[in-house]
């Protein structure tokens, strides 16, 4: 078989890849490249033709813009509270409890938590909006316990949307950790128990080290998902009141569309994309043995 023939054959074999590659290049790689270009221009919503190259102006402007810094800070709070502390820890706790619980309770809890996850984002937003409103369920419960009620969406909007994200996203961590815990051979834990390791020590020295790769993967995916939450916050607070729950995606949207500064909004998008890519790379490294 000569080289030309072989090349032709491998070309033929790669042919089924082409629809996917074309779609990905045009609609995913294209916009990313375009993003990297218009982030350095002063493109506005009106007058597309006259965008000019402005270098790093958009970025300089961002770091002097209090609204941007506020959004960075809120994104950090939102990510730490809802993803690291909330979804991840609660998901692990649920998975651990499920191993010991009776089957009906396990099925019921799993069903409820997964339903919250499967619901469309906007519906989840309404449900949690109703839950946190002044006239909502949370305050009704607090009143029963004789605790003061308040309008959570006004007093602590970022915490309210963080809890909403925990409600919506915990199922994913729970499923990941359930799968990971099920893969630990029973003998390992039993052997450790025979050696006298119990409760917290068993967890700390045996169980957690055995699922550390799942923990890494899950943290990365949770964080990436949380970085791109838009609909949930939009429905609950629109980023308000007064920008107090305006995370970066909402800030980006407002800058680009309500304030018509596409160039500036895209610069913010590019920063978000870069942060996301860094997390992605770490995630790939965690998985590197599997590809």
């Amino acid at each position, binding site marked *: 078989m000569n080289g030309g023939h072989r090349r032709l054959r491998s070309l*033929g*074999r790669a*042919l*089924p*890849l082409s*629809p*996917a590659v074309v*779609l*990905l290049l*045009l*609609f*995913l790689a294209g916009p990313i490249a*375009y*993003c990297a270009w218009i982030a350095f221009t002063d493109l506005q919503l009106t007058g597309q033709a006259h965008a000019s190259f402005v270098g790093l102006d958009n970025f300089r402007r961002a770091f002097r813009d209090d609204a941007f810094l506020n959004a960075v800070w809120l994104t950090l709070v939102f990510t730490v509270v809802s993803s690291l502390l909330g979804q991840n820890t609660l998901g692990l706790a649920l998975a651990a409890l*499920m191993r010991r*619980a009776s089957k009906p*309770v396990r099925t*019921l*809890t799993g069903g409820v*938590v997964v*339903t*919250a996850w*499967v619901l*469309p*984002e*906007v*519906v989840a937003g*309404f*449900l949690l909006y*109703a*839950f946190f*409103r002044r006239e909502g*369920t949370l*305050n009704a419960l607090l009143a029963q316990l004789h605790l003061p009620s308040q309008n959570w969406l006004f007093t602590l909007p970022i915490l309210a949307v963080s809890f909403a994200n925990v409600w919506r996203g915990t199922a994913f961590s729970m*499923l*990941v950790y*359930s799968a*990971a815990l099920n893969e630990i051979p029973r003998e390992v834990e039993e052997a450790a128990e025979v050696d006298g390791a119990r409760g917290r020590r068993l967890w700390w020295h045996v169980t957690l080290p055995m699922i550390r*790769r*799942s923990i*890494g*993967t899950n943290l990365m995916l949770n964080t*990436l998902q949380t*970085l*791109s939450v*838009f*609909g949930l916050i*939009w429905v609950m607070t629109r980023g308000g009141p007064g920008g107090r729950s305006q995370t970066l995606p909402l800030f980006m949207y407002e800058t680009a569309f309500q304030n018509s500064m596409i160039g500036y*909004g*895209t610069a913010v*998008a*590019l920063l978000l*994309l870069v942060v*996301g*890519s860094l997390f992605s790379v770490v*995630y*790939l490294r*965690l*998985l590197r043995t599997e*590809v």
Partner: protein
Amino acid sequence: MARTVSSRRLGRRLAADTGLLAVAAAFALPLAWVLLSSVDPHADLRVKAPDGLTLGNFDAILTPDITFTPLLNSLVLCGGATLLTVVCAVLAAYPLSRFRSRLNRPFLLTILFATSLPITAIMVPVYALFVRVDLIDTAHGTILFFAASQLPFAIWLMKNFMDGVPKELEEAAWTDGASTLQSLARIVLPLMGPGVSVVTVFSFVMMWGNFFVPFMLLLTPDQMPASVSINEFFGNRGMVAYGQLAAFSVVYSTPVILLYLLISRRLGGGFALGGAVKG
């Protein structure tokens, strides 16, 4: 001795059950609100027993304007994009799974990298790009973008499922002179029905619930899928008509919950994305 071990085990089980039930109750409260309010003639924002049962809320929203057109739009957008995603993913997974090539690894790494990119971040440039190439406010433009955004994960999942189909059967077909596409269609696909249905349902469910993509790429109210139109409804009327909002939420959410049940059953309850992204 045996008794203390078993009573300790029982105690642990009770503690675990209690803990889980507490969490389940907290998670169930918002769900209870939507179910109860949808049949409550005087629904408000808190969970309460309905003042009598009514289907009036459903009656009020089951009109072409409020429900049928947006759901049909959702179906066209998500169905079209899912079809495109699944066809492209099956085709792409085949060479990745079956033939050795130096390019497989870098390609798969790129795909995996793309699965975790925050799509939200590129929506502003996608909007600007779509305005330029005249795809803005078109169903086909939105379908193409939806498909592209879901494709990396679909390819990744599909390739993993295809790896599970033994290669020997195809080798026999190849010696009989079957082409790549023939062996894919006649031998591999029939053997990976569950895999294909998982990718299909998963893609569909993700798009059905997606708000930001159609919110950015579509402008005309008539074209809006339910994920966006529900928001308009809520903004204009839902502030007072909570029962109707709840009824709409139920109608809009039911298909994805049923679909999820379908695949989780099919895979013996073991379908966790955990299996797909196991680490």
